[in-house]
């Protein structure tokens, strides 16, 4: 398996893959024209022909038979071309000392705080391939790419996780809030959002803070709660240092998780090493390895052994990376081997 930049020739396979993801996968709609546009744009991005504000790095996961089995994306910067909105879950205290009344009311503040940060998004892995290192490779490969080219990205990486919704795709948060301002159901709004109209939609929202106590109980209950389907992604990113700092999606209240780039485990622990071909022993850990190229980027996960500043991998791994012995790689153990620090 390798992660590599998408190419226009991938379009039919990609369309097929996106069809399998279904309608909930709004950031990559199964619309041939739009998908073709996005793929062409990604190719230009990897060729460094676009500014950071427009950069859209779309990766695919490909097996050794050149079958596309997954997709993931990395956006150079959000909010630099059109406003990027989130709610921050803040607090309003209403207090009357004389009467002994003190109320703490969580309050939603509309903001553009994430402007200029980079976003990881659009991850889908074919269900029959959700095994071994595939999920981590597809997700963390992006982080290793950022480690190699930090100048192309913001200070933080963010991810908007899908919020709670019922089986019909109805969001209780949307029903209690957004619906009143848009007069449309969630799936329609979400669809428009996927087509790139998100900021237009956001402009229909009131600018003033919103008291959560005025939302329905169902809506209050899902604020900052990720959809159960996103749990594997959440778990992987949390282990990388991503955390929910109170920002949520304005439509479905899903959490926005974030991490300063320099604190991300994959970025922090990755190091440039010299590739060597040999036989890593059977106990050797799996490493995430990047060939340090931009347009011809290839990232894989393989057992490897570090000796000094060399990384010993088998011949197939080097072939997958399109590298020769002596070439430089950026690599990091796929799993965090240090025990988690316990907060004092």
């Amino acid at each position, binding site marked *: 398996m390798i992660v590599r930049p998408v190419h226009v020739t991938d379009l039919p396979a990609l369309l097929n893959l996106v069809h399998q993801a279904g309608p909930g996968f709004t950031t990559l709609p199964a619309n041939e024209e739009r998908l073709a546009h996005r793929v062409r744009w990604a190719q230009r991005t990897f060729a460094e022909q676009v500014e950071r504000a427009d950069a859209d790095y779309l990766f695919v996961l490909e097996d050794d038979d050149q079958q596309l089995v997954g997709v993931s994306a990395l956006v150079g910067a959000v909010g630099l071309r059109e406003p990027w909105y989130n709610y921050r879950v803040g607090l*309003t205290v*209403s*207090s*009357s000392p*004389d*009467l002994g*009344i003190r*109320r703490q*009311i969580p*309050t939603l503040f509309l903001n553009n705080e994430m402007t200029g940060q980079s976003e990881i998004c659009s991850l889908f892995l074919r269900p029959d391939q959700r095994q071994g290192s595939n999920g981590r490779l597809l997700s963390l490969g992006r982080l290793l790419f950022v480690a190699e080219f930090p100048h192309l990205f913001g200070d933080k990486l963010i991810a908007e996780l899908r919020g709670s919704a019922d089986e019909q795709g109805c969001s209780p948060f949307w029903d*209690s*809030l957004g619906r*009143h*301002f*848009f*007069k449309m159901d969630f799936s329609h709004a979400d669809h*428009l959002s996927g087509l790139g*109209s998100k900021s*237009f*939609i956001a*402009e*229909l*929202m*009131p600018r*003033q*803070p*919103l*008291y959560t*106590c*005025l*939302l329905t109980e169902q809506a209050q209950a899902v604020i900052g709660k990720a959809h159960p389907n996103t749990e594997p992604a959440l778990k992987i990113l949390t282990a990388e240092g991503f955390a929910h700092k109170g920002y949520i999606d304005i439509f479905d209240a899903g959490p926005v998780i974030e991490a300063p780039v320099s604190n991300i485990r994959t970025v922090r622990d990755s190091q440039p090493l010299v590739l060597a071909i040999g036989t890593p022993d059977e106990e050797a850990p799996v490493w995430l390895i990047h060939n340090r190229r931009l347009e011809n980027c290839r990232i894989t996960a393989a057992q490897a052994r570090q000796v000094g500043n060399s990384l010993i991998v088998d011949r197939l791994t080097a072939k997958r990376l399109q590298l020769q012995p002596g070439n430089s790689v950026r690599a990091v153990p796929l799993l965090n081997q240090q025990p988690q620090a316990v907060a004092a």
Partner: protein
Amino acid sequence: MLVLRPVELTDLPQLQQLARDSLVGVTSLPDDTECLREKILDSCASFEKNVEGHGPENYFFVLEDLTRERLVGCSEILATAGFSEPFYSLRNRHFTSASRELNIEHGVPALSLCHDLSGHTLLRGFHIDAALVRTRFSELLSRARLLFIAAHSQRFSEAVITEIVGFSSDEGHSPFWDAVGKHFFDLPYVEAERLCGLESRTFLAELMPQYPIYVPMLPQAAQDCIGRIHPDGQEAFDILEREGFETNSYIDLFDGGPTLYARTPGIRSIAQSQTGTAKPGASIDARGSYLVSNDSLKDYRAIVADLDYQAGQPVGLSAEMCAALNVTEGSPIRLIAL
């Protein structure tokens, strides 16, 4: 004979009984002896005071049954809402959601806390004995205030408002309060209204929501209370509506009851009331019912009377009427058809 007159300190015990019987939402009538005593003293001082413009004065009237020596109603005029303490209401206006790209434009009603009604003269504290509801004495109790304003217009603002008590159930539950106020005040509706009546109103400013409340987000029962009148407040509303008062976009913060507004010179009892002089002597042909006042300040009196009135002629009043109004031959009087 029932007469409307300014309150006096000796009215205190009977007034408290009235306060006890009054509707929960009539917050200017607290069932609290000290509070009521202060209100009476404050009113007496207001009637005594020489004023150039309208200020913090509060004019408190009682309706007295002279035969039985009993108080059967009361009402007030606060010269200036918001003069000595903030006067809050909720403004119900549309927040416009518009997107040209999506071809969407619509308004979402939103309630915002405001002081917009500050500076207007406020009619309040209307309460009448249950036996007199929907009689001409309700008209007297409410509209005699307007005749008073007509006689002493320099003491009042260019506009008059009143808040009509909003809907609450017999058990004292206000759906509007339960959906809005309760979140911020952590008090039952009845208790909140009681505190408000005691005029320890700083708690309002401390606890009230400062950001808009979007109406469609409220439960339907609460939305239905916006501008809805308590059944017992309907008469007060109807009387003033006939006077030319109109509802506007302001509602009560606690119960969602409507606000009525009128420009002072346009109010029917003010614009159309006639002045004349008293002429003791029974009317021979008492064909019309009138509200009659003596145009005084601290000796203000108003009654309901059946009279034979000709414009421009002295007004014939029976001895009983003259006594009730405290007028003699030639005293100025003011009247308006009931």
